[in-house]
């Protein structure tokens, strides 16, 4: 059975990118590709072939939902779980994000020590959804 190994992270704030890298690579032992925006993520995804995407919602240029929609058009991204990161975590806002086709939503600020476990849960959940299709 394959495991969660590669995570593509799309986030415009450099401080959050740094703490994500620490969390996923150093704490979680995952391979991480950091992108500062949606356009870069679209270029990196076919090369990096992520097992999961962690995607900021509010970004200049392509925002999170727009990036998600564009990623979903790539053949390599079919069935790959995409998890939003957002500071807006009211239930209706989370529900709206899930309706874009995200597997889950991580609330910012996140705990860098538990983020790897949390995204692994979403990865397993997303994979189960794909298996059911």
């Amino acid at each position: 059975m394959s495991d969660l190994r590669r995570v593509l992270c799309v986030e415009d704030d450099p401080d959050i990118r740094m703490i994500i890298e620490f969390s996923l690579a150093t704490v979680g032992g995952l391979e991480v590709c950091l992108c500062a925006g949606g356009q870069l993520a679209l270029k990196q995804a076919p090369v990096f072939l992520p097992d999961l995407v962690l995607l900021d919602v509010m970004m200049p240029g392509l925002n999170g939902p727009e990036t998600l929609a564009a990623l979903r058009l790539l053949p390599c991204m079919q069935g790959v779980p995409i998890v939003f990161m957002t500071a807006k975590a009211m239930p209706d806002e989370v529900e709206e994000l899930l309706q874009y086709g995200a597997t889950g939503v991580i609330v910012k600020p996140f705990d860098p020590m538990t983020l790897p476990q949390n995204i692994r849960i979403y990865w397993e959940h997303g994979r189960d959804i794909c298996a059911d299709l």
Partner: protein
Amino acid sequence: MTSAQTSDLTEGLPPAAVAQFQILRQRFVAGLPARWQEIELADTHLALQSALHRLAGSAGSYGFESLGHLARCAELLAQTDASTESSELIQALQRLGKEIETLQPAV
């Protein structure tokens, strides 16, 4: 955040990872004056909200919960208030500025 709280956050991590986290925290704190300047110089309501939003979303992940909370409070006030001159917002920004000042020599 005290060093005891930092140890709680990194409990169980190997020493090299704890050291890396400390370096990241120091970088974050060193970048706070630039973030504060961005907040102070924001010339539109949207720019102010955006700067506060990014600070609110990042501070807590570095263990600065109080800073993140103050930024979130100011962001919410900036969202609901059409004017950047509102006294509540100004007070919230002053509290945020003081917290940033306090953190400067602390790490």
